[in-house]
Every structure is written in C-alpha cells, then in structure tokens.
C-alpha cells in the first residue's frame, strides 16, 4: 500500500514538472478563457450562460489534451528509452506501476479541473450551484476515458516525435470540430453534422448541459462509451501484435 502511494506521488510529480503539461493543460485553457470571455466581444445575449459554458469547454479542452498527449507521449518515451524494460526487471509488480500511472493521471485531472474552475470563478465570477460544479467536474473526469484510450493508442507509436506531432494534430482537430473553441452552431451545416458524432463534442456537450441545469443527453454517454471500447480494443490489438513481433 505504501508502495502504491509512493508510486502515485511520483507519477504526479512527474506530470506537474512537465513544462508541456503546465503550458497546454493549465495556461492555454485559462488564457483562451480570458480572451473569449473578457477581451473579445462575442455578442452572445446571455453573458452568464456563455461564461459558464465556455469555462466547461476550456476544462474539457485541458483534460482531453493531457489524456491524449501527456499519457501517449510518456508511454512512447518509456518504451524507446529502455525505461519500461528496466521497470520490468525490478520487483515492482506491473499492476502497481499501471495503477500508479492511472491514479496519478486522474489526480492530475482533478487538479486541472479545480484550477480552471477556480480561474473561471475569479475571472468572471461564474456562479453555479454546488451540485453543478461537482457534477460537471465528475463528468469531465469520467468522460476522459475515451481520450485516455486514444493516449494508449498514441503510446504504441515508435518515435516520440511522431507521437507528439500526431497527438497534437488530433488534439487540435478534435477541439475545433467538437466546438470546444467556438460553438458548433456557428459552423457550416456539414461540420455540425460531423461534429455531433465526434467524441470531443459529446464530451463537451455533457458538461454544457449540466451547467444549463439539465442532464447530459443519453447519446453523449453512448457515443463516448463506444469510442472508449473501440479505441481500447484497437490499442490492445496493436500492442499484442507488437509483442508477438519482439519475442
């Protein structure tokens, strides 16, 4: 148990000390939030609702990024630099190593959610009920699962450079087409109909519904779950194929 705690602590330290994480997952979303709610006049009728909605968008943007990029790039690094081999020879059970990474990643997400929510409350005095804060936070935490699965998929790549380039592109494309930067409603019809099937839109939409005082649509849950299962299966399949090639 002590071992697991120590492993989790170390994993968190590692993420927090990663400058890319701090930049992409904390500074960028807060900066964007500031720009699109304070500096640029978006001309939306209900400012309060827009501020709450955009806060959700940016939190989703942050957690989605660290799920795919932080996790994916790290998996590739550990594989290419011989680190995972060394860990396999230590007496540390694989399960504790894996759980440590997952718990560490989750706590980091909780941290990101808390930081960005606080920033929103301070910048725009966004006020939601306690249950809305908690439920939207939990939604964002749980909804990250399909993106973590994408992260493990990115983690099967051979080179760190490819992994970081590919995950960056996926990240940006998903963020824009999913309506995290600007609402899907202002985009062309075709983009809208594609967007509705993307994991990023469904991830965001759940949180937007919650801050509007409604429950996430059932389709949001099913689509995210579907993506999670598909990405996990593909990632598992690739991994098994890679292992068969080595031994």
């Amino acid at each position, binding site marked *: 148990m*002590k*071992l697991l705690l*120590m*492993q989790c602590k*170390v994993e968190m*330290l*590692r*993420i927090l*000390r*990663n400058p890319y994480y701090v930049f992409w997952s904390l500074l960028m979303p807060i900066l964007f939030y500031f720009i699109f709610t304070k500096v640029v006049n978006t001309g939306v009728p209900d400012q309060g609702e827009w501020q709450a909605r955009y806060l959700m968008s940016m939190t989703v943007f942050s957690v989605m990024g660290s799920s795919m990029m932080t996790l994916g790039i790290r998996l590739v*690094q*550990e594989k290419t*630099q*011989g*680190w995972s*081999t*060394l860990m*396999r*020879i*230590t*007496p*540390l*059970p694989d399960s504790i190593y894996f759980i440590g990474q997952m718990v560490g990643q989750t706590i980091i997400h909780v941290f990101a959610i808390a930081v960005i929510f606080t920033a929103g409350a301070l910048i725009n005095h966004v006020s939601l009920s306690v249950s809305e804060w908690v439920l939207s936070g939990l939604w964002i935490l749980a909804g990250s699962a399909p993106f973590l699965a994408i992260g493990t998929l990115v983690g099967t790549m051979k080179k760190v450079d490819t992994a970081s380039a590919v995950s960056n592109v996926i990240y940006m494309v998903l963020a824009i087409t999913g309506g995290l930067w600007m609402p899907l409603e202002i985009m062309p019809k075709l983009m809208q109909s594609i967007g509705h099937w993307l994991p990023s839109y469904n991830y965001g939409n759940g949180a937007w519904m919650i801050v509007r005082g409604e429950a996430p649509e059932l389709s949001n849950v099913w689509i995210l779950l579907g993506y999670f299962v598909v990405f996990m299966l593909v990632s598992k399949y690739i991994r098994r194929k890679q292992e068969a090639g080595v*031994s």
Partner: protein
Amino acid sequence: MREIVKVERASKTYKEHRAVHDVSFSIREGEIVAILGPNGAGKTTTLSMILGLIKPTSGEVRLFGKEPTERTVRERMGMMLQEVSVMGGLKVKELLELFRHYYPNPLALKEIIALTALTESELGMRVEKLSGGQKRRLNFALSLAGNPDLLLFDEPTVGMDTTSRQRFWHTVHTLSEQGKTIIFTTHYLQEADDVAKRIVLFNQGRIVADDTPSAIKGKITKSYVTFKAKPQWVKLLAGFPEVIDIRQEDDIIRVETEDTDAVLALLFHERVGASSIRIEQGKLDEVFERLTADMKEVG
C-alpha cells in the same frame, strides 16, 4: 559455493534466425564472469534470458533455483542495461528513494552514494539534465538500490572516461569481495581480462570457450620467439615441425610456435647464432580474433 545462475541447453530462435543455440553454463556465488563476443554473437540475447525479459525457445534458465521472473528473484537482482535514459521529471535522490522502496532490504542511501561517488549537487539534479557519464553512474546506483546478491551489467563502461571506468571496476571488486555474484558483457577485451575471473566467449550463438582468462589464453594462444640473425635462416628454419610460421621484419625474425622450448633448442642446435632472443605470449585480442574467425570459416 551455491549455484546462482543456471542456463541449461537454452536456445532462442527468432523466426528463421538462431540467436542462441544450445547454450549451457552455470555461475556460482561470488564469481565475476565476463560474457564476451563480437556483435550478434548472442551475448545480449543470453543476458535477456537470464533477466527473464525473453523466454528461451527451448531449454531453461534458473536464478537462485527459480524462474527469473519470480518476484523473490527480482528482489535479489540488480542490473544496469545499455542505453537507458531514466524517466524524466524526478531528481536523482527521489528516483533512488523510489527504487529503494521496491526492495525488501534496500541499501542505505549513504552507502549507495559512497559506492557510486554521486555528489550532493548531482543528487539534487533532475535526471533528464544529467550528462551521459552521470546517467551511467545513476544507473549503476539504481542497480545497487536493492542491495542485490546478483548484479548484471550490460556493457557497463560504454561512455565512461578512463577515471570513471577505473572507479567503476574498483567498486565492482569491492562488491565482489562482499560475496556478490557479478556478470557483465563487454567488448573491451582488456576489461574482461583484467576484471573477470572467468570468461564465457560467445560466437554465432554458441559458447566457444568458457574458462579463466589465463587458461583461455594458454589453451589456444600463439607464442612467439623473436631474435636477430642472418636473413637466410628464415628459409632454413621454416622446414622444421616446431615452426608454425616464420617471418622477418627489418632485422628481427619472428617464429610462431606452440612450443617455445623446442624452438629455443632448435636455435642452439642448428647454431643459428641468434641474438636478442625473446619469448612473447599472445594477447587475449588474438585469441578472441582467432576463435571467432575460425568459427566463421566453419560456419
């Protein structure tokens, strides 16, 4: 002495390619063994099987009488792999502490520091900021974290300067005196000769020699008698059975033989009038070259 490592008729085949073929040897407590051989000879594959990273296609490997992958075995092992960049984001001291927690009877941090000569400022550095040599030392320190009975080093001194190399081997001697069993691979023959009490020489996936460095040298080594004499003796001496090869370089004649005594007797018996007579022993480099070259011709 107890048997620590036992490799029995182990083979490893990758698709069509035979990396290691029917290899057997055992290593007892307290031995320092060098695994030597040219690239692709099967050293790393053999080491990986001992580490439990790959499974032999046939045959078996036992450490402390158990499977290499068992946790109780892992707890008694320390290893330094080739080209490991340790994970970023941690300080040297934090990483050492983390590793110490993986083992039931870790070595005190103070002792690790004393053995590896890590400095106070290095301990506070982030591991990704370390230089190549410092990384090697950190890897060495990590291998000692669990106070292991068995240490395995894969090409440990690659990238070390002469001073660090000397200090490294000095420390290895200290560890060996404490009764630890040490296995290392190297392509520096001199190191194997100086450090190891036993050399297991690999070529083309097989063991071609397994003995003490001096015995290996003695067994197949070339010996030479060199002397100064008139050039016509080169042709005259070439016919004698003791003489394997004879060459002249400048005014020195060099005779290759298996029996230097017989050659000396010959020189006096034939009244060669040789001066500046010397006897030379072959170097391990030559043994290495000869053993591996012979195998190439056969294979």
